[in-house]
């Protein structure tokens, strides 16, 4: 797999990180990702990431659960094996509310968690490239993708000027991040050819 070069800048305060993100993006660098020890609200917007659609997926899973429950129970109790329970109607919708609800929740929750794991490529035994061990402790690690033209020393200086306490250059393989990495790369190259 092709290897890529990244410049890594570490920040120890989210209040310094935000202006730095803005400046780095304005300067035209491509921020690959920012690794943070906790969910920093607003950082996704600062990085220009789109809203996640995970909740929409959750809704679809939930509706699937509802229809599964209702169709299964109604088929079982009216067609497959109509049971006479105290002379009550076979199609006893109110009595099915609890199970329908439970299955809605179950499908939505399980489906969402699996989708979450798939989208983020999280699973047991998965190994990813970690740019800094303290990214899960107390550092906010900004990773900038380099092109052939990037002057890494300049970029490092730029990061330090914007409050980075530690900078570094790392080579990482493409395969460590599954997802839409390749598509982004294509778009970037296309832009270059247009400019030329």
């Amino acid at each position, binding site marked *: 797999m092709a290897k890529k070069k990244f410049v890594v800048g570490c920040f120890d305060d989210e209040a310094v990180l935000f202006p730095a993100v803005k400046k780095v993006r304005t300067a035209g660098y491509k921020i690959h990702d*920012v690794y*943070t020890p906790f969910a920093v609200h607003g950082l*996704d917007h600062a990085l220009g990431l789109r809203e*996640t659609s995970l909740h929409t997926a959750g809704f679809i899973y939930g509706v699937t659960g509802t229809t599964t429950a209702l169709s299964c*129970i109604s088929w079982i109790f009216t067609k497959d094996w109509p049971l006479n329970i105290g002379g009550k109607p076979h199609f006893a919708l109110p009595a099915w509310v*609890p199970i329908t609800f*439970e299955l809605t929740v179950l499908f939505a929750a399980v489906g969402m968690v699996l989708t979450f794991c798939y989208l983020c490529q999280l699973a047991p035994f998965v*190994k990813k490239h970690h740019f800094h061990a303290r990214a899960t402790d107390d550092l906010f*690690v900004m990773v900038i993708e380099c092109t052939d033209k990037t002057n890494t020393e300049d970029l490092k200086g730029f990061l330090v000027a914007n409050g980075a306490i530690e900078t570094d250059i790392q080579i990482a393989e493409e395969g460590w991040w599954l997802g839409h990495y390749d598509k982004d790369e294509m778009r970037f190259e296309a832009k270059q050819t247009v400019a030329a």
Partner: protein
Amino acid sequence: MHLKYESQLREPLVYGDKNYHQVTEDIVRPIEAKPTRLWYIGFYIAVCLLLFGVYAIYRDVTYGIGQWNLNKTVGWGWDITNFVWWVGIGHAGTLISAILLLFRQGWRTGVNRAAEAMTIFAVMCAGQFPIWHMGRVWMAFFVLPYPNSRGPLWVNFNSPLLWDVFAISTYFTVSLLFWYSGLLPDFATIRDRAFTKLRKRLYGVAAFGWTGSTKHWQRHESLSLVLAGLSTPLVLSVHTIVSFDFATSVIPGWHTTIFPPYFVAGAIFSGFAMVQTLMLMIRKIFSMEDYITVGHIEAMNKVIVLTGSIVGVAYLTELFMGWYSQNKYEGYTFWYSRANLFSPYGWSYWGMMACNVLSPQIFWFRKMRRNLFVTFFMSIIVNIGMWFERFVIIVTSLYRDYLPSSWSVYYSPTIWEIGFYAGTFGLFFTCFFLFAKYFPVIAIAEIKYVLKTTGEGYKGRMDTIEGEKLESFVHEHAH
């Protein structure tokens, strides 16, 4: 600089002037250190209880549940009492992790992880009772609806007992997913600072390769919020459905429309009591006083006095309806079998009243709410009281049925019924001790998230900023 501001009137949720790294250190320390003697003793006792429970269950399966003292009249005794009690205990965990998340209650961050763990272990314990109560437990899978060679003979979807199967299993699954998804970032924290190969490997597997990417955090936030939104009606539905086990029957004392809200309030009440018991132990054993503060304890005591009072109103409403309905069977159950102190089980009713309604009223006093000894004592009292409640509901409604010749004046459990209950305590505490040793008992990432808003050190500095602003404001405008 502060990204958010919180009023100075609110107590800090994290004491001490800590930075992010210090938070990691404090919470991960017990995992990286050798367990204390206290931990070994507790774990040993828990495992002994568990083994006794396993033996009791072994006997149940070998000799049948006839070795319990149940009879044709009192068909549900300690087993279902314990089932409802354990399920109820689980509810506080979900309330803290889900409902308080939706209500944006910052104090949930200190206690949610351990409370959710409690939920999962409590539901595991609860599940034992209906399963082993089946007697021929090797046919337990008959409760699952699947195309089978018996017809196919399906389960009864109109039965509250089947609703329970779905409710409890869904509750367990969703709680587990919610809990584990929250644990991923914290496992990654432990993995990245591990200094032994084994620990790095094990926590690496457990962390699923979490990196802390912004996109992942964004999805993680969305996931937590939706799971909280799903868990909130779920937790209410679970105890509602448990109450339907009783309320849809025609037994006087069970056939009551107030059961769902009454059961849910009772569940939260007993659950918070158990959370208090566990939190006071954790903060002592692992010296987490900075994270599980007296403010947390007080907030939970407020919930206890509120839900305890709701339960009290429910008891009184039942008594009132027993009279107002002018139904002699209802009246007999409520006014003779329960409220009459000199009836065979009157002691359990008044024990319940004393533990659940009267004694929690001391939490109206701030001094009592913030007193750790009182809180610990009360948490035990409330748990006993809530056990009595379920016992009262089940046994006093059953032991005198419509036919006096089948009245069963005294039902008392055998050692194997008690042993089974003790065994679930063993299971619960074995799991809890392992959790406390190997899992981060406080949500590290969530504490870091609120640290700069509610940490004592940061709040202190904010005070001076606020003061300066106020002074300059007065200086400029109050001419």
